[in-house]
């Protein structure tokens, strides 16, 4: 196996695998610990948007850090590799986050409407079946 193959292919794949498995290991360890009280009292849309933004920014920064390290330490990939990574991943986030937020809003609206319909049906049902005392 040539050293360039090890540097350019094996090292990134093994590194990605180790990062993911470390994340899994910590997640399993945390799931076996007693649950802590919720720190944030925020609920609803502000919490969801904060969660989404945090995940998107964190994931983007992590990937860019890996890409930049790969480019400068492992292999100078040709074809505007860094430009493509920065703009391409930002494009994906720009496309997916509004779609996800819109889909969440629609799902929330539908479930809210369904819950309201159920409540009004429950309100009507006992009134119809209630015995008369007059």
């Amino acid at each position: 196996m040539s050293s360039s193959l090890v540097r350019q292919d094996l090292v990134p794949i093994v590194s990605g695998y180790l990062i993911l498995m470390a994340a899994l290991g910590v997640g399993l360890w945390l799931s076996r610990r007693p649950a802590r009280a919720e720190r944030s009292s925020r609920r609803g849309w502000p919490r969801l948007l904060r969660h989404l933004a945090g995940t998107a920014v964190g994931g983007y920064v992590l990937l860019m850090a890996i890409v930049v390290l790969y480019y400068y330490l492992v292999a100078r990939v040709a074809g505007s590799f860094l430009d493509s990574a920065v703009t391409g991943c930002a494009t994906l986030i720009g496309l997916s986050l509004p779609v996800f937020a819109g889909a969440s809003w629609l799902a929330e609206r539908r479930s809210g409407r369904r819950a309201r319909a159920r409540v009004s049906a429950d309100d009507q049902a006992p009134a119809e079946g209630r015995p008369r005392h007059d």
Partner: protein
Amino acid sequence: MLSHPVIGYLVWAVLFGALFAWEGLALSHLSGTVPTLSATFRAIMRYPFGRWALFALWLWFGWHIFLRGWHFLLRG
């Protein structure tokens, strides 16, 4: 691209088959000890760094599959 030996594709097919078989076993609850893929991802997503790592993996995959080497039709 299709000039690779068939055995290489067969290995991928077997690996994906094993993945689906393992997930099927987990979903069937025949063995209560096998976690599903979603349970595994849920364990990773319990804390911010795990979510970032998974999101970075998703971004990397999407970038490679859909965007890398792709140009706007009107460009050039």
